[in-house]
């Protein structure tokens, strides 16, 4: 079924009126911003079909919301992989600007090395595309601040690929924090560890830097921007805040293979009210590789990949005043041992968190809503990452500056 152009145009007009009402500036060539009628599939282009981009394409292929009609990558193997997941008549590009010129594309997924995020996002905004930009948001702090302005002026949907904001597990953890299950929360302990060199195989030595861009500061912020970014965003999300300052130490002490990004970094972020979040990445040990421990004076929650466990504190405050306590039976398994935090509805299918994030992106594009993981939360994450790396580089405390959040 082909929706008539008039239908689409009408919808664009209504969408724009609604946006104007919501206080969006229309200075940023809004005529290019395409609205998508609820019945239409969102026509999508993926820029960067490496491991993450192809992973996204695999999920997108199964989703009725999207039609993947274009892929772009400078590495031909990646491009082929992307095209194998795309619609029948999808177009292949090696220059993302040409993809953006394609007027039939409503929205783009950008899954490229970090240093390319900002220029590509700016170009996509200028081309009037809605954007799903992989985390972390930008290579440096000025880009983060500037992108907030440009996105706000565009009226386009702009989502950052922090899928855990869309995952029931984290919603439940936030809920039980609010319900005071953990008592007063004073610390977060986050780690994103691996026991590997974190490299992809390179056939042609000329391609080393293009493929293993995570090893080089020219292209990204290393483990903090590529791994721990999720956890920093999670702490921001769970505390509804952002760090005030940070200290850190990093080094290349294990994988001395020519990389110049850290192979280990340990930072401590200070959040409002003295809440501390240690954020660590070690590339030479994988025990509980991904883990966030939330320390409260009544209990600890440990969030792992797809589950969370709660460990109550054993407190005997009640005793001392009395010789015994009568109450509903406390199961012995809830004392000092982990109990799994239940989340989601009974019988609900467990899905890859990214699917929830992409579904919401579709919802936002159709209804011109602001994503939960948006340019401002993305900015807060990116600035925190850069502060952490700067703290380790300079061995000096880095402070959140007032001008960051104007």
């Amino acid at each position, binding site marked *: 079924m082909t929706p008539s152009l008039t239908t689409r145009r009408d919808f664009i007009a209504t969408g724009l009126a609604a946006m104007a009402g919501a206080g969006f500036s229309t200075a940023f060539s809004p005529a290019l911003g395409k609205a998508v009628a609820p019945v239409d599939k969102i026509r999508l282009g993926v820029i960067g079909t490496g491991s993450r981009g192809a992973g996204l394409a695999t999920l997108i292929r199964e989703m009725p919301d999207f039609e993947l009609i274009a892929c772009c990558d400078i590495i031909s193997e990646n491009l082929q992989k992307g095209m194998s997941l795309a619609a029948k008549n999808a177009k292949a590009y090696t220059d993302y600007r040409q993809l953006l010129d394609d007027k039939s594309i409503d929205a783009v997924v950008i899954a490229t090395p970090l240093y390319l995020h900002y220029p590509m996002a700016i170009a996509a905004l200028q081309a009037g595309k809605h954007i799903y930009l992989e985390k972390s948001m930008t290579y440096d702090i000025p880009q983060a601040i500037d992108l907030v302005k440009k996105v706000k002026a565009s009226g386009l949907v702009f989502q950052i690929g922090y899928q855990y904001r869309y995952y029931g597990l984290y919603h439940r953890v936030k809920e*039980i924090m609010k*319900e*005071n*299950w953990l008592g007063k929360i004073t610390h977060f302990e986050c780690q994103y560890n691996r026991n590997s060199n974190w490299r992809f195989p390179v056939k042609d030595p000329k391609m080393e830097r293009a493929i293993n861009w995570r090893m080089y500061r020219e292209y990204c912020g290393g483990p903090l921007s590529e791994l721990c970014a999720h956890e920093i965003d999670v702490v921001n999300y769970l505390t509804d805040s952002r760090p005030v300052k940070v200290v850190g130490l990093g080094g290349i002490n294990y994988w001395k293979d020519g990389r110049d990004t850290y192979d280990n970094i340990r930072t401590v972020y200070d959040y409002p009210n003295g809440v501390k979040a240690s954020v660590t990445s070690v590339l030479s040990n994988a025990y509980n590789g991904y883990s966030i421990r939330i320390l409260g004076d*009544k*209990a600890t929650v440990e969030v792992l990949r797809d589950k969370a466990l*709660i460990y*109550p*504190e*054993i*407190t*005997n*405050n*009640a005793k001392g*005043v*009395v*010789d*015994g*306590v*009568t*109450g*509903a*039976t*406390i*199961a*012995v*398994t*809830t*004392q000092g041992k982990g*109990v799994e935090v*239940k989340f989601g*509805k*009974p*019988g609900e299918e467990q899905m890859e968190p990214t699917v929830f994030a992409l579904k919401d992106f579709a919802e936002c594009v159709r209804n011109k809503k602001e994503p939960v993981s948006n340019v401002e939360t993305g900015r807060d994450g990116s600035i925190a990452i850069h502060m952490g790396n700067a703290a380790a580089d300079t061995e000096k405390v880095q402070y959140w500056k007032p001008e960051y959040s104007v």
Partner: protein
Amino acid sequence: MGFMCFITSALSPVRSPEAHRIVGEAQGTTYAITYYAGQQLVSKMQIDSIFKSLDASLSIYQPGSLINRFNASQEGIEMDRHFARVIDKSKQIYYETAGLFDVTVYPLVRAWGFGAKAAGPMPDSAAIRELLRCVGSDKLQVRGTRLLKAIPCVQVDVNGIAQGYSVDVIAGFLEAHGIANYMVEVGGEIRTKGRKLPGNEPMKIGIETPSLTEFDAPVIREVISIGDGAVTTSGSYRKFRDSGGMRLSHIIDPKTGFPASREIISATVVAPEAITADGFDNALLAAGVDGAFEILRAHPEIEAYLIYKKPDGTVCDTASAGFGRFLGGQ
């Protein structure tokens, strides 16, 4: 070693009494025994072996236990001493509470996901109606030492009373060893006798405030001293199942087959024996405030303290007239 002990006790024949404490885990929860005596009179090993014999008889969590064999049987089985005592008392309270306490509720407990196995999907009303056929303690017949079922699908779960009974068994064991001042606590069910020595103070018992989560450490709402007797508490606040935003109580109303109304959040009962207190606390919880007072009027030997939720959501407490004498830690 024996020689050493002999020497020590020979050198100090009369010791001033002091607190001896035994703590451990049993029946899926914790226990704590404190007794006051001049020397150690019972050991943890002895206590644990008593729990083992209780579990072998009464635990639905232990494969091959007597109760599991009864549940699996077509007609019934030969009971041991523990099982016979618990069934006898359960049937008595069943009649005295007009069926609000009913150990044959097990098929329903299982259907609602509170049994020994993990929860499945929620049952529908047709399934409940079918299971209600198997429920009713009048379908249990005691013939001599045999317990018989009226129909094969009758199954029992004595979790609502066995803990109280265990407390009585332990208390009896302590008394048989000449201990006259003690507190026995198993999973929040308590029996006390005598006073704390050497100070001769009464034993203070805290009544817990219902907590929001199943993990909260106890917070004391009232402090009581009951002299020689037992106190137990049944609460709908710690064990529940979430369903569509509703919290289902693990206390099932044997009449309707559905989780009991949650008007009463916590029922604390004082009685001469823990088995009595433990049997009645569940019935009071299921009865609601008015129903609970009706039961209490017919049973002057028990006193109760109830924490309940008003329709507007506020939490209040109330107690039987005779309960006041336990308050203030006298």
